[in-house]
């Protein structure tokens, strides 16, 4: 890191050509898998939705690591902590909304 000032800025935390390309290839594979899971009609709707969810979560992690350069270094600990808080909020909002509205619909016999 210290011997060549011109290369220090392109260190791990900012990515490099190989890391962008690895991320891109992984993202393409995961995207194609998502489309294939639905368009091949090989899976039942429930299984396909589960597959879509898993593939989406994995692809989000790939993007976060390879494109947004998130890592667990101490320098980034605040970024990571804010992200975890936001992700937890989103899970509570979406999960809670689906749970409450489904429960309401059942009790109101609206579906």
């Amino acid at each position, binding site marked *: 890191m210290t011997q060549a000032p011109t290369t220090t800025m392109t260190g791990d935390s900012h990515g490099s050509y190989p890391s962008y390309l690895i991320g*891109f290839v992984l993202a393409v594979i995961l995207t194609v898998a998502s489309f294939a899971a639905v368009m091949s009609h090989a899976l039942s709707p429930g299984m396909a939705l589960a597959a879509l969810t898993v593939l989406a979560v994995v692809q989000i992690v790939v993007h976060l690591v390879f494109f947004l350069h998130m890592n667990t270094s101490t320098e980034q600990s605040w970024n990571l902590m804010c992200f975890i808080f936001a992700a937890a909020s989103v899970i509570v909002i979406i999960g809670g909304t*689906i749970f409450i509205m489904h429960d309401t619909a059942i009790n109101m016999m609206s579906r």
Partner: protein
Amino acid sequence: MAHEATMSPLAHADDHHGEHHESPNVFGFWLYLMTDCVLFGSIFAAFAVLRNQYAGGPSGKELFDLTNVGIETAILLFSSITYGFASLNALAKNKKMVLLWLAVTFVLGLSFVGLELNEFSSMIAEGNGPDRSAFLSAFFTLVGTHGLHVTCGLIWMAVLMVQMMGPQDLSERMMNKLACLSLFWHFLDIVWICVFSFVYLAGVM
């Protein structure tokens, strides 16, 4: 004032040793993105509740053209990596290449917005606008909000390209702006992953 104060120590640090400390501006922008994340989470929650409320109107299966969605997805994915190349060239202080890759990213982003507007206008022309059913209201709100974000990113990118065109070097301030737009652009691609998975692909099942 504020950014001057935070930037001068950074500029010195970069000259002398490799430890690159993230600017507080970039961290502040990251915080904004996290609130944006919650905004999209809320809209996704609304969509999840309303996705089966067709009110006698068309369902996603009848409306969505997966070829179009696939092209849009590919465009956004390519624009992510071309922005990545712009970032790497910015770190190498190669301004011409930064402008070139930003221009490529801009064209890709513009074609994404064009495809989306085309999809929206043909849906509305067939009478399937946001006023048709709760499902379509939620659909237009969610996908439209993402498209609006992409449009804002494009305006931002155009402004940065104009600012960079002068004879000056890539300043630390410009590097921070590029870093913020990088976060924004890659973040929008992450939102799009959720859109194509849970709106389009789950919608045609």
